[in-house]
């Protein structure tokens, strides 16, 4: 008699999705950062003629890019908080205004809005270009932020609000002392991602003649005709900045997820 055929089931480690703490995952980020940073150092060192000149030309653009990004994100977070609260408001009028703002802004391409706000604002009030650019960016990103805030607030279990109210908190107190502090934990990582997205989108303000990284690079390229070299350097600068920022954000995310990991 022959042995009955046996089926063997192979048992692996069952890791369908690698975990965030997995050391092997870090390599992509490290590879990109080290690659970009090395190129940023090595290229000007080997061929200083175009590359070093470009690196010398661009830094004030980096400052402007950061200025626009930080100012717009602060303003956008504020607008986003107001919009997010407005979107979950029981007051129909406030709710309608907030929803209308979000719908309109999300339906128009960022570039078109930038042009529109920049030149429309110019006709109405006298504002410097940087301020106009910041207002335009904040206006656009405020709507995206509003949705992030709304989602964050709605992610807090309704039982929390009920518990607070049963302890005699009024709706405003419930929001400020119970819901928002918990919602921050959910909101912060996407806000960080929006920050990076905003930083990249500030390259759009170069069309408004704001001298950011891209505009500085284009000015250099249009004079020297070194288009390839210039855009290589600009891409690398953006890449290094966003890689570092994204690492900071994932670190922040890691620390904020302490209670989930426990």
């Amino acid at each position, binding site marked *: 008699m022959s042995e009955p055929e046996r089926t063997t089931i192979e048992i692996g480690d069952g890791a369908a999705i690698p975990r965030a703490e997995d050391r092997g995952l870090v390599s992509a980020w490290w590879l990109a950062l080290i690659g970009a940073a090395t190129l940023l150092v090595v290229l000007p060192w080997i061929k200083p003629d175009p590359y070093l000149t470009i690196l010398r030309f661009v830094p004030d653009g980096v400052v402007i890019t950061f200025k626009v990004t930080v100012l717009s994100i602060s303003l956008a977070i504020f607008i986003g908080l107001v919009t997010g609260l407005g979107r979950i408001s029981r007051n129909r009028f406030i709710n309608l205004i907030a929803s209308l703002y979000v719908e309109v802004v999300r339906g128009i391409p960022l570039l078109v809005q930038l042009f529109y706000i920049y030149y429309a604002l110019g006709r109405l009030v006298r504002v410097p270009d940087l301020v106009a650019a910041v207002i335009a960016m904040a206006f656009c990103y405020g709507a995206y932020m509003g949705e992030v805030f709304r989602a964050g607030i709605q992610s807090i279990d309704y039982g929390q609000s009920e518990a607070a109210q049963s302890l005699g908190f009024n709706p405003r107190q419930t929001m400020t002392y119970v819901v928002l502090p918990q919602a921050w934990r959910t909101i912060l990582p996407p806000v960080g991602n929006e920050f990076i997205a905003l930083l990249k989108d500030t390259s759009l303000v170069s069309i408004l*003649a704001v001298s950011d990284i891209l505009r500085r690079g284009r000015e250099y390229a249009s004079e020297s005709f070194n288009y390839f070299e210039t855009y290589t350097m600009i891409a690398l600068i953006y890449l290094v900045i966003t890689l570092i920022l994204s690492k900071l954000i994932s670190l922040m995310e890691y620390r904020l997820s302490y209670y989930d990991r426990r």
Partner: protein
Amino acid sequence: MNNVKNPFHLYLEPTGDVKKKLASLFFDFVLVLTCVSFTFFLRVFLGDGRWKNKHHNLCCGEAMSKTLFAAVSLFLLTLCGAVYAETTIVFATDATWPPMEFVNDQKQVVGFSIDFMTAAGREAGFKPVFKNTAWDGIFSGLASGKYDAVVSSVSITKERKRVMDFSEPYYTVRQALIVNKASQATSLADLKGRKVGGQIGTTGYFAIKAADGVEAKSYDEVGLAMEDLNVDRIAAVVCDDPVAANYALDKYKDRLKIVAVIESGEAENYGVAVNKGNSETLALINRGIAAVKAKGIDRELKEKWIGQ
């Protein structure tokens, strides 16, 4: 091909590299032969299907082969038409520079340079095709072969000559300073510490950068700079004088004025830019420009587009 005067024009006038044209003729001939033999192959082996069972015949019978034959002949005819057409030169132009080149209300690219090159094409026997291209990067597109030449009010400068070849000059301009009607400034020197705008990569912008103490601000299009000047975000704009006249005397005539021609700058000449070493195209364009100038067409065009 509506304005073909002489169908054999290309082969009668040895304007360019004869060898290249012979090679392309030979290539066309081979292509024709291939097409003809392919058609015959279809007719004989697939068309009547005598060598195969009727049911397995994929290409079904006489009708199909006739259609195929007709299609291939049509293709060959168009091919022959293309072979005998005039040389086409594709020009890139940034149509945001009125009155030299701009898009009119019928969405056509028009202007002095456009008319000039069309006339030059008529004289020298090439068909100009104008491709509206953004100014910033227009020269990199030339280098990568997206078009044959750039006719976009390009002033001939030493720096540009290093990387590309220029035709004979076809128009002469100076840099003009435009300010708001209320402004007291009469030269760039009066604008120390203020922002002055120009289009990126233009000689006007370079003039601003060369001036001491003036903050240079570059725009993608000169029209955007004019609008920023109109709303007082910047103190002045520097650009070529025909363009300055178009904005300050026409579009914004209530708000802006031309105060000066930049003192340091000598006269600049517009030329058509081609890639380094593209002598064939350059010769054709130069011949056109010379003929247009000799016939006095340029004066008519100047009157038509620029006036004064």
